[in-house]
C-alpha cells in the first residue's frame, strides 16, 4: 500500500495558475457540511474543465463532486431528468441518447459536470435559439455551509436560483438539479460547412443561416487576403428516425506533455492552412454523428497537454452588436500583430434570448474564443490588452475561461457583482473571486 501521503494535484483545464489545492471527495449529497469542523473556505468542483481559476482555491478545500453521479429520476414522457450535480454531460448522453433525448445546450466538451454547467451557465452552438444551460434547469437543490438546504427555482427561492446559475459555484454546493432534455430522432446531425473569406462574409452567412446549431472556425494567424478567413459550420438534428446507440469511449489520448516549442507560429500556420484547405469545395453538406459535430476535441483525451507544462490561456469575449464587427476585427488584428497564434479560434453569433443567471456571461453580439500557449513575456501583456479592448468595446470576458482579468475589468464587465456578492455563501470562494474582488 502506498504510504507516502501526498496531496492530490488538481489543475484546471488551462493548467494555469498552478495552486496548492486540497481535494476532498464527496460521495453523497448529505456529506457536506460535515459536523462542526468546517474548513474556512471551500469550493465545489466537478471535472475541472474551466480553463482558469474559477474552479481553483488556494488555502481551502475543493469539494470534488465526481462521486455525486446518480440519476435520481427521469420522466420518459417529458424528458425531464433529475440527477446529482457530479453527473457529467457524457453520462447524461449515455443514458439519454438511446432513449431518444439529448442535452438542451452543450458546450464544446461533454466532460463537464451538471453542477459546473450551471455554475458557469455554459452555452453552445445553439445559443441563438436556446440561450444557455441554466435556461433549461428548472430546479435544483442548494446546500449552504450552515447546513441549510434549499430547493431553488423560479418560484422557490428565486433570488438564490438566479444567483446560482452562472454564480461560479460561490452560492453553495449544488446537490442535485433537474435538466430539461430535448428529443432527437437519431444521433445524426445534418450539417453544412461553408468557407468564408473575412468577417463580412461571416456575418452575411450568419444572418442568412436558419440552423439550430452554428459556429465558425476562424484562422487568426494568416494575414493579408487570408485574414479572418474561416469555415462556418451549421447543423440541425436529423429528423430521420434511426436506432440510437451509446457512443464508444475515446481511444486517443495525449499521454505526455508536449515540449513548449512544439506549438509555435510555424506549426500553427501549417495547421491553420491545412484546416482551411482540407475542405476543397466552397460548401460541403452531409450527415454526421453528433460526436464529431459537437465534441471534435473530446475524441482526444487530455488534449490540453499539447500546450506543455506551462499551460495555456483561453480568451473568450462577447462584443455587443454596436461594435461587433469592428471590435472583433480589432481584436483579431491585435492578436495577429502580437505574433502569438491560436490554432483553434471560434466565432459565434450569440442570440437575443436572455440567460436566467444574474452573473451569466452571454449577451447579444459576437463571441470570439481562442486559446494561446503561455509564453509569459508575450501572452500576459497581450491578454491585458485584449481585456482592455473588450472593456472599451462594451463587451465582457467569460470567467470560466479567464485567468487574467483585473478586478477593475471584472467589475465593469459585471456591474451587478455587488448585488451577486450578497448571495455568496460566506464559506465559498475561489481563486478567481479572491482575485477580482481583492482590490474592490
Amino acid at each position, binding site marked *: *500500500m*502506498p*504510504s*507516502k*501521503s*501526498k496531496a*492530490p494535484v488538481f489543475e484546471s483545464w488551462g493548467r494555469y495558475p498552478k495552486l496548492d489545492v486540497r481535494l476532498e*471527495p464527496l*460521495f*453523497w*449529497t*448529505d456529506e457536506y457540511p460535515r459536523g462542526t469542523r468546517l474548513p474556512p473556505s471551500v469550493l465545489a468542483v466537478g471535472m475541472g474543465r474551466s480553463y482558469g481559476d474559477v474552479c481553483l482555491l488556494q488555502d481551502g478545500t475543493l469539494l470534488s463532486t465526481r*462521486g455525486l453521479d*446518480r*440519476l*435520481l*429520476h*427521469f420522466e420518459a414522457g417529458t424528458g425531464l431528468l433529475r440527477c*446529482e450535480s457530479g453527473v457529467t454531460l457524457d453520462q447524461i448522453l*449515455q*443514458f439519454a441518447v*438511446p432513449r431518444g433525448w439529448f442535452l438542451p445546450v452543450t458546450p464544446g466538451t461533454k466532460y463537464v459536470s451538471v453542477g459546473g454547467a450551471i455554475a458557469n451557465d455554459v452555452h453552445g452552438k445553439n445559443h441563438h435559439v436556446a440561450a444557455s444551460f441554466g435556461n433549461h434547469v428548472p430546479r435544483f437543490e442548494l446546500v449552504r455551509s450552515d447546513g441549510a438546504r434549499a430547493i431553488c427555482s423560479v418560484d422557490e427561492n428565486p433570488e438564490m436560483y438566479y444567483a446560482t446559475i452562472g454564480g461560479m459555484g460561490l452560492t453553495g454546493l449544488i446537490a442535485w438539479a433537474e435538466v430539461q432534455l430535448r428529443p432527437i430522432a437519431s444521433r445524426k446531425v445534418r450539417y453544412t460547412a461553408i468557407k468564408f473569406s473575412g468577417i463580412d462574409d461571416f456575418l452575411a452567412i450568419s444572418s442568412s443561416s436558419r440552423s439550430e446549431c452554428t459556429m465558425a472556425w476562424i484562422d487568426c494567424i494568416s494575414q493579408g487576403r487570408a485574414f479572418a478567413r474561416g469555415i462556418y459550420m451549421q447543423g440541425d438534428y436529423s429528423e430521420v428516425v434511426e436506432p440510437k*446507440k*451509446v*457512443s*464508444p*469511449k475515446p*481511444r486517443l489520448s495525449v499521454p505526455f506533455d508536449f515540449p513548449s516549442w512544439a506549438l509555435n507560429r510555424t506549426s500553427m500556420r501549417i495547421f491553420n492552412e491545412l484546416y482551411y484547405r482540407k475542405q476543397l469545395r466552397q460548401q460541403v453538406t452531409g450527415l454526421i454523428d453528433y460526436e464529431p459535430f459537437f465534441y471534435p476535441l473530446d475524441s482526444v483525451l487530455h488534449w490540453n497537454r499539447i500546450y506543455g507544462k506551462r499551460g495555456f490561456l483561453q480568451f473568450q469575449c462577447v462584443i455587443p452588436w454596436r461594435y461587433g464587427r469592428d471590435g472583433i476585427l480589432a481584436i483579431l488584428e491585435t492578436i495577429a500583430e502580437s505574433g502569438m497564434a491560436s490554432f483553434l479560434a471560434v466565432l459565434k453569433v450569440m442570440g437575443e434570448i436572455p440567460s436566467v443567471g444574474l452573473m451569466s456571461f452571454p449577451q447579444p453580439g459576437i463571441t470570439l474564443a481562442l486559446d494561446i500557449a503561455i509564453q509569459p513575456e508575450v501572452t500576459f501583456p497581450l491578454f491585458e490588452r485584449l481585456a482592455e479592448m473588450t472593456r472599451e468595446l462594451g463587451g465582457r470576458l467569460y470567467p470560466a475561461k479567464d485567468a487574467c482579468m483585473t478586478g477593475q475589468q471584472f467589475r465593469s464587465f459585471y456591474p451587478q457583482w455587488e448585488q451577486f456578492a450578497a448571495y455568496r455563501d460566506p464559506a465559498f470562494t475561489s481563486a478567481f473571486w479572491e482575485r477580482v474582488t481583492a482590490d474592490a
Partner: protein
Amino acid sequence: MRRRRSQIDSLEERPIEARTERTGRSGRSKRAMPKTILVLGATSAIAQAWMRLLAPDGASFFLVARNAAHLDSVAKDLVTRGAAAVYVETSDLDETAAHTGLLERAVGALGTLDCALIAHGVLGDQAAGERDFAVAAGSLQTSFLSPVSLVTWLANYFGRQYHGSLVVISSVAGDRGRKSNYIYGSAKAGLNAFLGGVRNRLDREGVQVLTVRPGFVATPMTAHLPQGPLFATPDAVARDILHAIEHRRDVLYTPWFWRWIMALIRVIPEWKFKKMDL
C-alpha cells in the same frame, strides 16, 4: 480463470447498453444475466457500479445498507436506469443475529434469487487494531464473521435451488499478511479459505461461488490514500465482476494484473518478506 488481455480490454471499451444488448442474445458458453439480485453493502462504490450495469436489463434488486438516505439515492439511480423493482432495507450487517430474517425477507420480496453480492466491509484502523484487540475484533466481525454468516444461509439457499451465483468481494490483501494491513488481510484470508470450501461443496449443486479480489479501487474506502497508477475505477472492477459471473469464474483478480502482482508477492520467501516494507 484464464483470461486473455485483449478480451478484457474489449470488454472495458464496450459501453453499457451495447454490452447488455449483446449478452442478451445469450452467447454459447455464457449464462443469462442475473435478474433477481440481492446486494449486501449496496452503497459500496463497487456494488453501485455493478448494479448500474444490470439495471438497464430490467433486473430486480433487494438492497441492504446502513444509511437510509444513501440507500434511497442508490435505489433511485437504479430505478431511473431501468431496474424492474428495487427493495431496500437498512440494516447493520455486523449484527449477525438479524441475518436470517433479513435474507428471508429478501427472498420473499424478490420471489427467487439468481445472484447475491456481498460487498460490505471496512478497511479498519490497522494501527488502532495493533494496540487494542477490541478494534481488531470489530474489524474481523465486519470483514469475516458477518460475510460468513450471510454465506452460510445463502449457500444453503442456493444449494437447495441448484442454481445461483454467490459473489463475495474479498481483497488481494488476503493473499499475504503484511504489516500495513494484516488485520483486514487476515479477515479476507479467512474469508477466501471459507469461500474455497463452500465452492468445493456447492459446485456439484450447480452453484457458482465467486471470490472477487480487487486491488486498489478508487472508492470512499481508499479516498484518504494517495491515488497511484495502480488504482482502478469501480466501474472497471464492476465490469470484470459481471464478466466473471457470465463465464462462471471461481476467483477473480481485478484489474487482471493483480493476479501476477500477488503471485510474485506470494513466492517471496518469508525470511525475505519479513524484512520488506509493503
